[in-house]
C-alpha cells in the first residue's frame, strides 16, 4: 500500500488538457486510455492538511533536542526561566506599563551604565526614570507629569532595544512559551500518534478476529466490548492511568519490595528463635516452623532496633532506582499511552468487526478460499487492504481524540507531569490567565491555536488518505 502511494507520488503526474477551442470527438470505443490521476492529489484540502501536519511534526521533531537540551542556566530550555520575567508578552505585542517596567528591570546594570555613558545621561537618573511609577514608558513617551529631557528619552529607548525578547512571550514562571509550545507539541503529537497506533492495532486485531471467527467467539468478544463501553470511560482511563502509575512508582522506589524483604527476614529470625526456644523448652510463640503475619508484626514492634537494622539492610540491598528525569518522564508518558490506547480501541474494534462481517460475505472471499489461500493470508491480502480506508479514517480521528484525552489527563495531573509541557497542560494553565483585569492572552492562545490547527489538519489528512486508498474514487483525466 505504501509502495503504491509512493509510486503514485513520484510517478505519473495528472495531465490537464482542457481549454482547446475546438473539441475533437472520438467514439468511446476508440478513445485513448485515460491516464489515472495521482491519488494523493485528489483532495486539495487533504494535501494542505498533510503539508501542515508534516511541517508541524518536522518543526516539533527538529526543535525537540533543542528544547530538551540545557540552555544558558543549565536547565532544559523548555523549563528555563526566572519569575522576574513572568507573564511577559510576545516581543511583537505591545507591553503594558508594568510589563514594560519589568522588562526594563531585566536589562543588565552594566548595559544601563554603558548606555548612560554613551548618551551622556547620569546613571542614577536613568535608573530612577526606569524604576519610576509608570516605568520608563511614561518617560519615553513624554506622558509623565514632568517633562523629560530628550537625551534621557533616547537613552530609555536604547534600553528598550536591550529588552530580552520572547517570540511567544513567557509563562507564569518566566519560561519561554515558544520552547514550551514546541516541546509540548512534540509530546502531544507523539502521545497522540502512539496512542492512536496502539488503539488501531488492538482494535483492528480484536475486531477482525471477532468478525472472522463469528458465532459464539464473536458474541463473547463483542459483549466484552459492550461491557467496557458501558463503564464510564473517563473513570476507566483514570483507573488505568493510576494503576500503571502505581506500577511505575513502585518500580522506581521499590518500597514494597523492601518491605517484603524486611518481613521475610524478620520471619526467618522469628522461626530461628522459635526453634531455639523449643530446643530450650520455651518459645516466643511456642511453635517451630511456623510464623504467621501477626507474629512477624509483633516481632517487628517488639524490637525496633532490629527493625531499623533490617530496614537499613534492605535499603542497602534494594536501593531506590535512580532514574534520570528523562527516563522518568518517558515512563510517565508510556503510562499515558497505556491508559489512552487501552481504552480507545473499543470503537475501532466495533467498526472493524462490522466491516469484516460484511466483507466476509463477499464472493471474493470465497474465491480466495477456493484458490487455496490460508486464513492468515486471506486476512493480510484480502481483508486488510479492504479495511485500509476505514482504518485510516478512524485512526486519523483517534489521533485528535488521543491528544485531547492526553490534555484532559494532564489537566487532572495524571498525564504529562508539570515541568514537562504538552499542548494540553499549556492550554489548561493558560485558560486561567484570561480575566477581565489583565489578560495574558498569549498563554492559552498559542497552544490552543496550534492544537486546533493540528486537529483540523489531521481530519483533512484522514479524508485525503481515504480518497487515496480507494481505487474506485480515481478521477480519470484524459
Amino acid at each position, binding site marked *: 500500500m505504501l509502495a503504491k502511494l509512493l509510486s503514485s507520488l513520484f510517478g505519473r503526474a495528472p495531465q490537464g488538457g482542457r481549454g482547446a477551442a475546438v473539441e475533437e470527438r472520438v467514439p468511446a470505443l476508440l478513445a485513448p486510455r485515460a491516464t489515472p490521476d495521482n491519488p494523493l492529489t485528489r483532495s486539495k484540502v487533504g494535501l494542505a492538511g498533510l503539508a501542515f501536519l508534516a511541517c508541524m511534526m518536522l518543526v516539533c521533531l527538529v526543535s525537540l533536542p533543542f528544547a530538551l537540551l540545557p540552555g544558558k542556566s543549565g536547565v532544559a530550555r523548555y523549563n528555563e526561566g526566572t519569575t522576574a520575567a513572568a507573564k511577559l508578552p510576545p516581543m511583537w505585542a505591545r507591553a503594558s506599563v508594568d510589563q514594560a517596567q519589568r522588562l526594563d528591570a531585566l536589562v543588565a546594570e552594566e548595559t544601563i551604565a554603558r548606555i548612560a555613558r554613551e548618551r551622556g545621561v547620569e546613571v542614577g537618573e536613568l535608573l530612577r526614570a526606569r524604576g519610576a511609577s509608570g516605568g520608563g514608558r511614561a518617560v519615553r513617551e513624554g506622558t509623565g507629569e514632568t517633562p523629560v529631557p530628550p537625551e534621557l528619552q533616547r537613552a530609555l529607548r536604547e534600553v528598550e532595544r536591550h529588552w530580552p525578547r520572547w517570540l511567544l512571550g513567557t509563562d507564569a514562571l518566566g519560561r519561554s512559551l515558544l520552547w514550551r509550545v514546541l516541546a509540548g507539541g512534540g509530546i502531544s503529537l507523539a502521545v497522540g500518534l502512539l496512542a492512536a497506533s496502539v488503539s488501531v492495532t488492538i482494535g483492528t486485531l480484536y475486531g477482525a478476529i471477532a468478525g472472522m471467527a463469528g458465532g459464539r467467539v464473536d458474541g463473547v468478544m463483542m459483549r466484552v466490548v459492550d461491557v467496557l463501553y458501558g463503564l464510564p470511560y473517563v473513570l476507566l482511563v483514570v483507573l488505568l492511568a493510576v494503576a500503571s502509575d502505581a506500577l511505575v512508582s513502585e518500580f522506581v522506589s521499590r518500597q514494597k519490595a523492601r518491605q517484603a524483604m524486611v518481613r521475610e527476614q524478620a520471619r526467618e529470625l522469628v522461626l530461628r528463635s522459635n526453634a531455639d526456644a523449643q530446643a530450650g523448652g520455651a518459645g516466643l510463640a511456642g511453635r517451630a516452623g511456623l510464623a504467621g503475619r501477626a507474629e512477624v508484626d509483633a516481632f517487628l514492634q517488639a524490637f525496633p532496633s532490629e527493625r531499623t537494622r533490617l530496614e537499613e539492610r534492605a535499603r542497602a540491598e534494594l536501593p531506590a532506582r535512580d532514574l534520570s528525569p528523562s527516563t522518568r518522564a518517558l515512563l510517565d508518558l508510556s503510562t499515558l499511552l497505556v491508559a489512552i490506547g487501552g481504552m480507545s480501541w473499543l470503537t475501532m474494534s466495533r467498526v472493524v468487526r462490522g466491516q469484516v462481517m460484511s466483507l466476509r460475505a*463477499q464472493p471474493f472471499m470465497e474465491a*480466495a*478460499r*477456493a*484458490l*487455496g489461500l490460508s486464513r492468515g493470508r486471506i486476512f493480510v*491480502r484480502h481483508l486488510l487492504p479492504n479495511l*485500509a480506508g476505514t482504518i485510516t479514517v478512524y485512526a486519523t480521528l483517534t489521533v485528535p481524540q488521543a491528544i485531547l484525552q492526553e490534555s484532559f489527563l494532564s489537566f487532572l495531573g495524571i498525564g504529562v507531569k508539570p515541568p514537562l509541557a504538552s499542548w494540553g497542560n499549556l492550554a489548561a494553565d493558560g485558560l486561567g490567565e484570561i480575566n477581565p483585569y489583565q489578560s495574558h492572552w498569549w498563554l492559552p492562545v498559542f497552544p490552543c491555536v496550534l492544537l486546533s490547527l493540528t486537529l483540523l489538519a489531521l481530519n483533512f489528512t484522514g479524508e485525503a488518505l481515504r480518497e487515496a486508498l480507494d*481505487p474506485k474514487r480515481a478521477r480519470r483525466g484524459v
Partner: protein
Amino acid sequence: MRLLTIDNLTVSFPLGAGRRSVAAEGVSACVQSKRTLAIVGESGSGKSVTALAAMGLLPRAARVDGGSIVLHREAGGTDVDLLRESERSLRAVRGREIAMIFQEPMTSLNPVLSIFEQLEESLVLHGGQAMRARSARRERIESVLREVGMERALGAGMGRLHDYPHQFSGGMRQRIMIAMALLGEPRVLLADEPTTALDVTVQAQVLGLLRSIREARGLGVVLITHDLGVVRAHADDVCVMYAGRVVEAGLAASVFARPTHPYTRALLACVPTLRGEARERLATVRELLEDGGEERWRLAGVGAESGTEPLAWWPWRKAPGNATPRRVEVGEGHWVLAE
C-alpha cells in the same frame, strides 16, 4: 480418464429442534478429462452444495452425512477422498488440483487489489520455486491472459495489468477469473454458473473459451447451470438434479434424445424454441408435472422385461416405495431414478 468421482454424497443442514434439511442425498457423478459434466437443476436442487463439497468449502453449518469424493491422481500419485482430508491438505488441493469459477465476476474479484496482484497470488501459492521471481510470474500471467483472450483488452504491452477490477467489463472479469483458476494448473475446473451474469454474446465467448482450454489442457470441467441451452451445446455428460437427488444422468446426447424422467421432460418443455408453433405462454414445470395423473410418472418402455413399468421417483408423492429410490438403466450409461 477419470479425474474426480463423487459417490453417494449426502449433505445436510441443521433446521433446529433436531431436524435436518437434506441438501444433497446419494449424489453420484464422475468427472473425466477432456469432458464437460453439466449439473442441471433449479435453485435448491443441490448443484452448488455438491460443487462446494468437492472444494471443501461447505458452510460451517453443513454436515457431510456420507459418501465420498475421490480425486484421482495421475500415475504415481495416490487417490484421496476429499471429504476425509484435513483443511490443511485441502488447501493444497484447492486451486492446484481443483479450481473454481464463480457466478458473479463482478464481486468475485477483490475491489482494492489490481488484477495483477490477484493473479500473482495463485502463482505465489502454487507456483513453487520457479515462480519466486516477479519477472517469471509476470511472464506466466501474460501467457495465461493471452490464453484466455485478454491480449487485446489489456492494451499495448499488457498496460492494463495493474488496473483494478472495476475498470473491466463483466466478460473481461470472468476471463480474468478463468485465468486465475488456470494459473494453479488444475486438472478439474468447477464452473458454478459461470455465465449467468453475462449477456448472451459474452456467454457464448466464455463457454467457447472454456471448451478450447479444456481441449488444450485436458481438463475435466464441471458446469453447474440451469440453462439447458448451454448444456446441450457444451456438455458431454449431464446430471439432472432435483430436491437434492440426481433424478437422471447420462451422456448429454442420450439424455436430450430420450429424456425419460418427467422432471427432465418438463424442464425441456419449458425452454422456448425458435421452431414449432407459437404458444401463448410457456408451461411451468409444476403445470407440466401435475397434468396427466399417474400415467405421466410411468417410465414407459423401461424395465419391460420384468413385466412392470416402474414409476419415476418424485419426492412429493406419498407412495410406500418412495423411501428407497433405485436407478433404472435407460440406455448406454443413461439412467433414471425410479421408485
